[in-house]
């Protein structure tokens, strides 16, 4: 028996709060789960700074990766198995891609990537193709197998059915994270009938479609996603923590570039400060390491780095007001100057932040839309784009919602020094229109 088809003597199961059990029979999957690089995902939270708002949201990317694997396993083993439009030889590659799709995520990915100009997808590819335990396991399947898995994750794999199971507007990744994040945050949105959706998924030509009888379950899924984005993922207080985190990393980087002598050398960051990093530097980081540095930086001489670190560690977050950049970008400039007059550095303490989401989009003939729509399989066998049948989905299709906020440290504006200018700042912030 080849390594690719080798089964464990006994099925292994992981207890899981979302899917109840995660089933592993393939030796390859078991070996991958036990690799260093997959275990590292236990030390990276799925929702970054959201735990500062939803205290239950401490779950890791490891939980989510197992969840995505389990959903795909059920699709290919229970739903697609022996259907003529599904190529059984793709089973292992799609299972591996599901398990490994988030492998390149780093600690507090969003902020880290912005400050150090790195891309977790590039790291995913490097982990799959470089000198790692994961690569060694995949190579045992076949010499070109690591590349195939990397292509599925990068969405450049020739079989689009396989890609769409991991990455499309209704994929295993989203179906897992919506339910998992809802469970751990404790919110009541995010729930939908996944069992129903899985049962009505069908492989057809180069895509995966949904039998029209499952349309209402898909509507529910799209509305759940919409709610989760605005209630959880874009929560303004979690964004405040994210802003502070980004500014801590930016400050540490700028201090290093200016030759500042840290009390404790930031060894783990040096390769990123100098842009000489390799995969091993990236893999040495996790959220435990970053939090340790934030604790150490609370004692630094630099007042900005120590203050921001203290804010993050002890949850002394920035306040926020709504902000309309189209009308108010000039006032933002005025505010920046007032902050300087008040002795508060606006580069670190006056931060504009935006976030937006498009709940569902469809293909418009002739224009270059890049999102694959969700297609329904109608009773007579024809394919119909979802929003043409669903009024609810049609109502939100193609409609982007954007939210702008301006973050600032309110308590620094009410302490005694430079009172007049601080009053002026507060007045502008209170009046809105900044």
């Amino acid at each position, binding site marked *: 028996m080849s390594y690719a088809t080798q089964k464990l003597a006994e099925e292994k199961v992981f207890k899981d709060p979302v899917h109840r059990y995660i089933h592993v029979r393939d030796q390859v999957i078991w070996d991958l789960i036990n690799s260093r690089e997959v275990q590292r995902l236990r030390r990276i939270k799925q929702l970054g700074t959201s735990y500062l708002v939803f205290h239950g949201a401490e779950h890791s990317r490891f939980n989510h990766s197992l969840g995505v694997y389990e959903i795909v396993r059920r699709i290919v083993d229970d739903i697609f198995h022996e259907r003529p439009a599904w190529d059984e030889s793709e089973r292992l590659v799609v299972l591996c891609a599901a398990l490994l799709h988030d492998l390149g995520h780093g600690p507090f990915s969003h902020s880290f*990537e*912005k400050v150090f*100009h790195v*891309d977790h*997808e590039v790291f995913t*590819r490097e982990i799959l193709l470089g000198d790692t335990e994961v690569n060694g396991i995949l190579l045992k399947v076949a010499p070109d197998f690591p590349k195939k898995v990397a292509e599925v994750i*990068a*969405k*450049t794999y*020739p079989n689009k059915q396989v890609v769409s199971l991991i990455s499309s507007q209704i994929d295993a990744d989203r179906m897992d994270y919506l339910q998992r994040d809802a469970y751990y945050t404790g919110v009541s949105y995010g729930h939908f009938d996944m069992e129903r959706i899985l049962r009505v998924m069908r492989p057809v030509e180069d895509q995966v479609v949904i039998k029209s009888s499952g349309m209402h379950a898909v509507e529910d899924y799209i509305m759940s996603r919409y709610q989760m984005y605005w209630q959880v993922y874009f929560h303004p207080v979690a964004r405040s923590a994210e802003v502070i985190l980004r500014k801590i990393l930016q400050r540490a980087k700028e201090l290093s570039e200016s030759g500042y002598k840290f009390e404790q050398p930031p060894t783990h960051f040096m390769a990123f400060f100098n842009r000489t990093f390799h995969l091993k530097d990236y893999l040495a980081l996790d959220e435990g390491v970053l939090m340790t540095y934030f604790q150490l930086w609370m004692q630094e001489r630099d007042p900005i780095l120590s203050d921001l670190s203290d804010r993050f560690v002890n949850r002394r977050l920035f306040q926020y007001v709504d902000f309309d*950049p*189209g009308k108010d*970008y*000039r006032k*933002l*400039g005025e505010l920046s100057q007032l902050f300087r007059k008040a002795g508060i550095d606006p580069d670190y303490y006056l931060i*504009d*932040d*935006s976030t*937006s989401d*498009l709940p569902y989009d469809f293909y*418009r*003939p*002739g*224009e*270059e*839309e*890049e*999102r*694959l729509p969700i297609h329904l399989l109608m009773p007579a066998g024809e394919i119909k784009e979802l929003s043409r049948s669903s009024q609810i989905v049609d109502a939100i299709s193609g409609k*982007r919602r*954007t939210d702008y906020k301006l973050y600032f440290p309110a308590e620094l504006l009410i302490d005694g020094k430079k009172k007049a200018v601080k009053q002026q700042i507060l007045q502008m912030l209170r009046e809105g229109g900044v």
Partner: protein
Amino acid sequence: MLQEHAKIVDFISMAEGVTGRKKLQKMIYILKKMGVPFQEKYEFHIYGPYSEELTARVEELCDMGFVSEALEDKGSYVQYNYSVTAEGLEFRDALGKSVLADPLQALKLNEKSSRFLELTATLLYFDHLERTEQIDKLHIVKGKLNFTDEEIGQAFEFIEELAVLM
């Protein structure tokens, strides 16, 4: 955040307007690959490298009134034309300096067809591969477009030409 918006406004202004969403996506990607500090994150989608962040940013700029989007009906298809408004130019001037060393970079890109830019951007997306692998990959992911050897050669020449301008 707004500096990134200003960079896009500046680019559209330097290109003297851009016709087509796909074209704008690919032009920014090509420049980013050439080292121009655009921060938009790209992934591989239907037409090659695509940035959801860029799509969002352009929509925001249209909502703010800094970029105008005009829909042109071409009969069998529609096309979006982007141009910078007077308010957009003020915004650009208030917020920052250009990230392009030479306006010619934008104009050179803009004179190419959407198909050619899709080809060039896709080749750049696979620039971590050996050239033969890069071309093989192009044919796999863009099989339906039947790019000829001549077009591929021109795309590689164009990449070299742009690199000189950087």
